[in-house]
């Protein structure tokens, strides 16, 4: 099975004055479509750095990164936004919604970046919000939404670009446990529907049971490495829809 993201011997060093801080010391990792992977580890272990490099937001000091079968480690910085726009959706700890735009307009913004505008954008944004259970909140501003609702809007926005990879940094940190669980279930079902690769950085060990795989990172290295190129989980057959999205069909806007 071909990986959605593959990193080999990844090293990242931040220069700080006369010394440098090495956040990643040679990481090897494959993430496959259709699986939910948790990245866990103590603060400063390199989880967010790894996520940032996988998301083409940071560049590695050395090593190779392949995203959607494309070698990106040799791309210059100007080319990286295009890779993110095409293949990756992000969900952030602080939701990162635009406070002056409504929920619907936040989703439309992603569509606008993809060149989808006007009525078509509005219709697709409405459909996406409906799929995350927020159809009635299209015209609501983020200030009038609960934490869970904001995160669902953020998920809808991340999905608006139809990415094959979803990267989330502590998506439940600002939510209560019940709401956080619901969001995680939604992200699990995203992974199992249409073969999206979902990678989540989290400190919350209560979510481990929802993951297909948990990667522990310590001091810039994976503490429990799996053999390279070996799928860890059985492949989900294409077209089989389970869980939350079985109850909310039609998250297909391709």
């Amino acid at each position: 099975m071909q990986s959605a993201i593959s990193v080999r011997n990844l090293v990242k060093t931040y220069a700080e004055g006369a010394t440098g801080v090495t956040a990643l010391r040679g990481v090897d990792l494959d993430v496959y479509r259709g699986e939910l992977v948790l990245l866990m580890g103590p603060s400063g272990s390199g989880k967010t750095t790894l996520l940032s490099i996988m998301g083409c937001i940071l560049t590695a000091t050395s090593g190779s990164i392949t995203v959607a079968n494309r070698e990106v480690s040799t791309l210059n910085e100007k080319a990286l936004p295009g890779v993110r726009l095409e293949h990756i959706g992000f969900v952030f700890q602080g939701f990162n919604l635009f406070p002056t735009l409504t929920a619907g307009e936040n989703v439309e913004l992603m569509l606008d970046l993809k060149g989808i505008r006007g009525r078509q954008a509005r219709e697709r944004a409405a459909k996406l919000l409906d799929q995350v259970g927020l159809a009635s909140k299209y015209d609501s501003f983020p200030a009038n939404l609960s934490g869970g609702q904001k995160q669902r809007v953020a998920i809808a926005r991340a999905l608006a670009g139809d990415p094959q990879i979803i990267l989330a940094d502590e998506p439940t940190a600002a939510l209560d446990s019940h709401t956080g669980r619901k969001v995680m279930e939604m992200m699990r079902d995203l992974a199992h529907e249409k073969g999206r690769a979902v990678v989540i950085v989290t400190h919350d060990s209560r979510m481990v049971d929802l993951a297909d795989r948990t990667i522990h990172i310590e001091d810039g290295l994976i503490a429990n490495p799996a053999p390279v190129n070996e799928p860890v989980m059985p492949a989900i057959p294409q077209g089989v829809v389970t869980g939350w999205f079985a109850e909310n069909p039609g998250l297909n806007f391709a």
Partner: protein
Amino acid sequence: MPPLARRNLFHDKIRLTVTLTGIVFAVVLIVVELGLFVGFTVTTSGLIDHSNTDLWVTSKHVPYIELGAPFSERKLSQVKAVPGVAEAQKFITQWTQWQCPDGRTESVQIVGINPDSELGRPWNLVEGRVEDLKTPDAIIVDELYKKKLGVTRIGEVFEINHHRARVVGFTNGIRAFTTSPYIFTTFKNAQDYSRIPLDQTVYLQVKVAPGADLGQVRQSIQNRLKDVDVVTNSQFSRMTQVYWMFTTGAGLAVLLAAILGLVVGFVVVAQTIYATTMDHLKEFGTLKAMGAPNRYIYRVIIAQAAMSAVMGYVLGMGVSFFVVHASQQGGAAILLPLPMAVGMFFLTLVMCVGAATVSISKVTSIDPAMVFKG
């Protein structure tokens, strides 16, 4: 595109008010100063521009109309004999003293003309007729200077340099740049009021015959009269404008004030748009993380600047129209020709978009990894 720029702009109403105040200040200051510059320029050469004259014969090296020196009036007949000359008239403008009813003395500029000629006549008459100047001791005064000279109505009698002067008419809007009002009268009266000898004149005004070549006629007169200068109306107008506006520094002063307005507007807009950008830095970082190219973000910032420019321009021009209108009854007219109003729009746009470049350079350097910092 979702209305991100518009929403960000109107989100913080206090900051928007500050931005618009800065732009309005800049627009009003620039319009007023440039309007003063245009008004002053037009005023300095008003006598020349409204003279209906093609050529001026002056004593040697006269730099502007107020500095003419007397020369023999016999040159008039010599000028009239030049082929291509349709008409020539004597013309005086000289400073002299006006005696106000309350005992004050005011400086005035006597303008002596031939009331039977179209050359050099007063314009914008609102009371009386130019022909009334042919009555004894007749003068025409501008309404703007009634209070200054103590004039209230037609028929009043005053003293100019110990000679009698009787008001027979009023004009409106004939300003003197030097603030010494023009007093139109006959050439003969002007000689008395200004103590110019009877056989002398200060200028000769020449009208060229239809079809005659202006340059050739000018040269012919110059060849015939050796100890005078012959200049075209437009040349004389420009010389007078340049002297008053730049040689004296008056024009530079108003232009500098206009530039100051531009700088103030630029700084205020740059500062407020920068502050707004900093407030929304996380959003711009999110946009970058989502894959937005830099130019997408630039569009948002420039759109904010452009919207601010349009709103500020409209408000600023509203205030400016009021100021311009109020100035029409004053000694210094502020003029706002249509090209200047249109140009002001583009200048405001350039000012605001230029000010936004400070913010653009900031967002260019945003590290999208900041979005992971909670």
